[in-house]
């Protein structure tokens, strides 16, 4: 076999790889620009919101009192005070909401996927959950008002708020559990059955651990979401400027309610409180999202 250098250096008649045509280059440029533009349009409002929040809300929270005191006894023109009372309210109300909706929702999800598949009861439940997931938060608030306050004759309270949040949270938990259980391959369940492991133990020890990371993340993100709900708060609990630990008695502050109430104090100090509470709420939600990411990493299925 003899190869002439001249042969190699001679260009082939039709090269295998051709230059991009000018038309395609132009189209590529236009498309790239459009997508970049869309990105900018979407991101600007977000950054703007964050910027405004930080600019106006940062100074209150640099004061140590902000995290340890309430607004108790403040006059409309007084600066100072703290958000502690509202943090307590938001955290307690959300925690109790989680305490009720997580076990209930996860159980419903397990029933739907592991036991009820295709049964009439399961289909009906899925349908109800679908409806519930579209429920406007103001309606959830009204419903609890009608039930808890009008029918049972109980007082407005932080707990009533928790109940309305449960209505909003439950479909989220059921959905996320369903989705995460659904993607656990049946082969794993069969592998467990084939070892002589009963069904309930298969669910607890094989199926749930495999989907734990996803379920946890979904639940926490859902909690972060209901944490900012405001409509039920306006109906179901009175605002208090003092610290109230008791979910069952008396008015109780929370972060969204504080933002709403502070807005009505049309002084500079009122604005100061409003933006401080708003930034605190956003930071809290960001913190929770961060925790969700960490937990999902921690419980993720590892291969190495």
């Amino acid at each position, binding site marked *: 076999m003899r190869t002439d250098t001249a042969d190699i250096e001679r260009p082939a008649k039709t090269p295998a790889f051709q230059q991009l045509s000018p038309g395609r280059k132009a189209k590529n440029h236009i498309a790239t620009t459009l997508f970049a533009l869309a990105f900018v349009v979407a991101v600007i409002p977000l950054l703007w919101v964050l910027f405004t929040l930080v600019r106006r809300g940062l100074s209150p929270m640099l004061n140590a009192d902000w995290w340890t005191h309430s607004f108790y006894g403040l006059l409309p023109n007084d600066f100072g005070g703290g958000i502690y009372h509202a943090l307590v309210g938001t955290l307690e109300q959300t925690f109790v909401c989680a305490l009720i909706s997580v076990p209930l929702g996860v159980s419903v999800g397990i029933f739907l996927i592991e036991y009820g*598949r295709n049964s009439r009861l399961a289909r009906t439940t899925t349908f109800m959950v679908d409806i519930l997931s579209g429920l406007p938060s103001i309606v959830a608030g009204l419903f609890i008002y009608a039930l808890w306050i009008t029918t049972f004759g109980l007082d407005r309270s932080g707990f009533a708020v928790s109940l309305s949040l449960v209505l909003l949270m439950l479909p989220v938990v059921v959905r996320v559990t369903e989705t995460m259980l659904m993607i656990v391959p049946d082969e794993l*369940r069969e592998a467990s059955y084939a*070892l002589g*492991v009963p069904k309930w133990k298969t669910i607890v020890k*094989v199926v749930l651990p*495999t989907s734990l990371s996803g379920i946890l993340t979904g639940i926490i993100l859902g909690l972060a979401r209901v944490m900012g709900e405001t409509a039920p708060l306006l109906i179901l609990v009175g605002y208090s400027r003092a610290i109230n630990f008791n979910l069952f008695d008396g008015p109780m502050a929370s972060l969204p309610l504080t933002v709403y109430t502070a807005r009505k104090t049309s002084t500079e100090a009122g604005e100061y409180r409003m933006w401080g509470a708003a930034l605190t709420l956003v930071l809290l939600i960001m913190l929770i999202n961060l925790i969700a990411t960490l937990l999902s990493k921690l419980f993720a*299925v590892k291969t190495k």
Partner: protein
Amino acid sequence: MAKRLDIENLNLYYNKFHAVQDVTLQVHARSVTAFIGPSGCGKSTVLRSLNRMHEVVPGSRVEGKVLLDGENVYAPGVDPVQVRRTIGMVFQKANPFPTMSIKDNVVAGLKLAGEKDKKKLDEITERSLRGANLWEEVKDRLNKPGGGLSGGQQQRLCIARATAVQPDVLLMDEPCSALDPISTLAIEDLIAELKKDYTIVIVTHNMQQAARVSDQTAFFNLPAVGEPGQLVEIGETGKIFSNPSQKATEDYISGRFG
């Protein structure tokens, strides 16, 4: 250990679909029985009915008897969980538990049944992994996730997991179909080793494999599309491959099929 299976007039259904008709055959203790036949003829279905895994599929139904040393696993009052503890299974696709370490995968059956004795679990881990020809490859990373092993290693891990609970019978559904020739040979050697203690039923599409590992071979076939699969014949492997009594068997084995 190692019990015989007598299958009598077995009919298997998926909802209204009659998948397998009238299978009667014997599986001898401490021997390897191979199921061969074209795709869709019901080999997996029959295999899965032997340890009551068939009924895991919603709408499925079983008629007939499967006798384990004379005891019908389908008798009323028999707990399928117990049946599966006595008749283990290895699947076509390796399916280690992704959340468990290699060691926990091996002893999963025991641990989930409540065994806590650490020393005993350690012993069984080593014995089962040695039995599955995997010990040397994984002994330094027993606490690493089972999902990090190669496909062939995962399949041997699943075999170790199935033998760790010391069943009487081991069912294998195309255990080598996703493996390279070297892993396949390793598993065939393993089967030859395991048959000293276990009764083994293996489904395979690989004729040479059936000829190499099995003592008796059962040929299943579909008489026609849409009709239930049937057992055509069963006999000593040497005879089935050299001198089958049915024309269909001969055609299938010699590749003159359909």
